[in-house]
């Protein structure tokens, strides 16, 4: 809402250059030859990360430490191996509500007291709940380590589940979810996951705010009792610390936390990839353009073809230089922007192409995306394309570790999903080992599968824009099913 400050609109800037009418060249001095072509890069310096020091405690708690010498900040994360996919199927978001009760007070302290304790040490607390795990992050100044550990101990071991605080927490979360509905990309992505995760535990985190009313204080407390235990927790520390010394400090505070039998499957059942043609249209009255998602399920990050798939995704739709963008935008002019993305969970991954298009381009864009999927899996891939994608991914890797919070988040992801150390400090090697054959193999395995198509736009566009699809399921913006259109007409 502040007019003087705004992010640079990359998508807007990558607009097609209009017809060249006259020129306004600013004269330059005669140039040296070195200016004509891009310079040759210096020798590449590989990313080296410190090993994760994993220190087990007697009660099953694991302390995972990665030293960051010289950092004046400490990032402490309590990672609980239970996320939204562990919420009861009929009570979505129980995991989130349980996690958000952690700083809402103890028997002796109110929620205000807890907030005051955190802020009095200059702490920055956040709670994030993903499909597979929950993270309480406390970032503090290094000199407040002891007080920060005391604070986390209070939160995790002594939370008090009070009715009033629960009602307030649920109300706040309700409005957050409601607010996210304004974003058509969020709505489309959520619906894609909902379809792909039908009848799977991962579907719980794909519902709208209305389901929150079913979750009670008792449910949140039961979730806490079921999953919050030392033998289901990893305590992650990133900062200028000594592993054994900090493990001792954590041990002193968390030793009394009793081990508990955890009733959680080693991995949730892997959902089955989509095999039948499904096109869904979500009515989103505020949309300016249509947003298209075309996606399906792929492998989990522990699979052997994970890294080849990352390269595939990059070559297909990672940047403005990738196939989808070059085809849908630059060559055909079907889309304002077109990229592909993937996210990975414990049991599977989800991959999708995403495009922003004018309503009249919806069908053409969907067809073109599917055509690009098929082309990648059936036509010859140019090795240079693969090398460029690898170069991007390897070059981008250090950025994932630059800020203390991103560094700790990456570490939490590795330990929470139980991934091998290669995902932490050998990702660069793993990417470099990928060759064209492995990429083609991954493409042939995953891209020909029939994807789910999700379109978000205004209902008034539906008749004309959807007439070329055989059947389209129509939903409102919350994802509630309304009707089916055949060739754009309700029959």
């Amino acid at each position, binding site marked *: 809402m502040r007019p003087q400050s705004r992010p640079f609109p990359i998508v807007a800037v990558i607009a097609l250059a209009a017809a060249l009418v006259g020129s306004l060249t600013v004269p330059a001095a005669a140039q040296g030859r070195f200016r004509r072509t891009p310079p040759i890069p210096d020798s590449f310096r590989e990313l080296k990360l410190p090993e994760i020091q994993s220190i087990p405690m007697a009660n099953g708690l694991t302390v995972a430490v990665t030293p960051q010498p010289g950092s004046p900040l400490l990032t402490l994360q309590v990672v609980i191996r239970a996320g939204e996919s562990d919420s009861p199927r009929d009570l979505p978001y129980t995991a989130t509500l349980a996690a958000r009760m952690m700083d809402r007070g103890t028997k002796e302290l109110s929620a205000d007291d807890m907030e005051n304790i955190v802020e009095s040490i200059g702490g920055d607390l956040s709670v994030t709940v993903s499909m597979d795990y929950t993270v309480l992050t406390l970032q503090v100044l290094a000199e407040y380590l002891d007080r920060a550990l005391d604070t986390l101990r209070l939160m995790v071991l002594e939370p008090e589940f009070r009715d009033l605080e629960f009602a307030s927490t649920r109300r706040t979360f309700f409005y957050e979810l409601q607010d996210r509905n304004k974003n058509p990309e969020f709505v489309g992505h959520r619906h894609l996951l909902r379809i792909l995760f039908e009848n799977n535990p991962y579907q719980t985190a794909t519902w709208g705010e209305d389901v929150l009313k079913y979750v009670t204080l008792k449910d949140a407390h039961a979730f806490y009792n079921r999953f919050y235990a030392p033998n289901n927790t990893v305590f992650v520390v990133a900062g200028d610390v000594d592993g054994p010394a900090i493990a001792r400090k954590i041990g002193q505070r968390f030793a009394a936390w009793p081990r508990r039998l955890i009733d959680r499957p080693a991995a949730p059942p892997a959902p089955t990839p989509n095999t039948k043609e499904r096109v869904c249209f979500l009515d989103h009255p505020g949309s300016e353009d249509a947003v298209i998602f075309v996606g399906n399920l792929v492998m989990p990050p522990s699979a052997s073809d994970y890294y080849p798939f990352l390269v595939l995704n990059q070559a297909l739709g990672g940047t403005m230089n990738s196939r989808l963008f070059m085809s849908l935008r630059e060559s055909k002019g079907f889309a304002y922007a077109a990229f592909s993305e993937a996210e990975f969970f414990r049991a599977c991954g989800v991959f999708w192409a995403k495009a922003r298009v004018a309503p009249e381009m919806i069908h053409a864009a969907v067809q073109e995306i599917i055509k690009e999927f098929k082309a990648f899996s059936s036509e010859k891939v140019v090795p240079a394309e693969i090398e460029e994608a690898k170069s*991007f991914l390897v070059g981008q890797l250090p950025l994932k570790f630059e800020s203390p919070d991103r560094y700790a988040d990456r570490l939490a992801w590795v330990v929470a999903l139980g991934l091998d150390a290669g995902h932490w400090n050998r990702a660069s090697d793993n990417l470099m080992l990928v060759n064209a054959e492995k990429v083609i193999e991954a493409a042939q395995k995953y891209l020909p599968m029939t994807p789910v198509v999700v379109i978000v736009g205004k209902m008034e566009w539906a008749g004309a824009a959807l007439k070329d699809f055989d059947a389209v399921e129509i939903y409102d913006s919350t994802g509630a099913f309304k009707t089916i259109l055949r060739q754009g007409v309700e029959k």
Partner: protein
Amino acid sequence: MSKATTLLLTATLLLAAGPPSAWPQKAVSSGWRFPIEEYRLNNGLRVILSADETLPLVSVVLAYGAGSIREQQGQAGLAYLMENLMFQGSENIGPLQHLSYIQRTGGIVNADTTLDKAVYYQTLPSNQLALALWLESDRMRSLQITAGSLEKRREEILAEHRRRLATEPYLESYSVFDASLYPDFPYGHPLIGTGGDLESLTEADIKAFYAGCYIPNNAVLTIVGDIQIARTKELVTKYFDPIPPGSAVSPPPRPNFEQPREVVQMMQDASLPSPGFHLGYRLFPPQTGDAYTLKILEDLLFRGRTSRLYTRIMKRDLTAYYFWGGLENRRGVLALKIFALNTTDVMAERCQKALLSEFEKLKVGLVSEDELNKARRLFKLDYLQRLSTGLDRALYLADAAFAEIPLQALPSELEKYMKVSSQSLNLLVNRLFVPGNKVVLNIRIR
């Protein structure tokens, strides 16, 4: 305003930058644990280097004194349009290729325009430093703009502005409020303006702005990351030294504010969802040390759920459903700004009274040591977080250069904030939070 800019409040209070310098590693807790070196090329380009080998990355920031303060009456939006045109290609680089070259390396690229400068920045693998310098130097020396691309960008900016006006109902109220809080065109007009000026900008305006502002002697190049100083200097010389300097750049206009008493305005708009208000204090001219005190005051009032004003408005009184407050720095002109949305007119009035009563409390009593310590620690965490990446530090150094802060002073900067006392807070509030500095814009929906 960039995030780093908000910390640089000492702009008008400190001496101009000294000669080239370097210092050994200072205390880790200052946030400045890597040496910094600066020098100038013959063409006037100021270069700041800081080597940090933690990760194989380098951040390159090129900042020009080409912000909206350089716009004349009738040119609002020119600086922002220019920023966008800088991606449309130069003698050796095609339209938008700057973005794709950086993206190919896995790097990130962005730009930002503020009141006093236009900043272009990228972070990429450190072995690609020369690529960033090649790209930046080419558009500094030979930007190429077609009439077609100019029109296209203008249309896109206007469309984007219209979309924002449609989706952010209070956007216009910010512009109205700023015009009162900074009643001086160069300091008070919004980045894009109303759109009217943008439509009438000519190719000649663009050319003149580029020729006058996008020149080495009006720019600062900051390079932070995994660099070897000698090699980096060699590359900087190769790419930038041959670029001729432009004409001498006059200093930006000095602010000229005259406001004998408080200003209270009313904005009525039936299309808005609810009533609310903007409340601000213009804190100009500041005295030595005010910048540090004001920053701690900002955190005491606004940062966190236990801050003084959040507690009063959002927890105790419940008179607002949305509340934002913070300190703003427009090239040394400081202002404390508050924006609140309320369910009814009565709530808006109560909310405003409550806020003013909190300022009165600060005038008559001293802040407790506990409360002050909390504000100091929250500030310190935020300060260190904002310096945690190479790009953060590169942007901060560029901001510091434009604010004329000696770089040697940076390692002792944090300590100055930590020394702010309850007495200095009390004196400052009594001196600056007076009717003559106060501006209110009430928003009503009937």
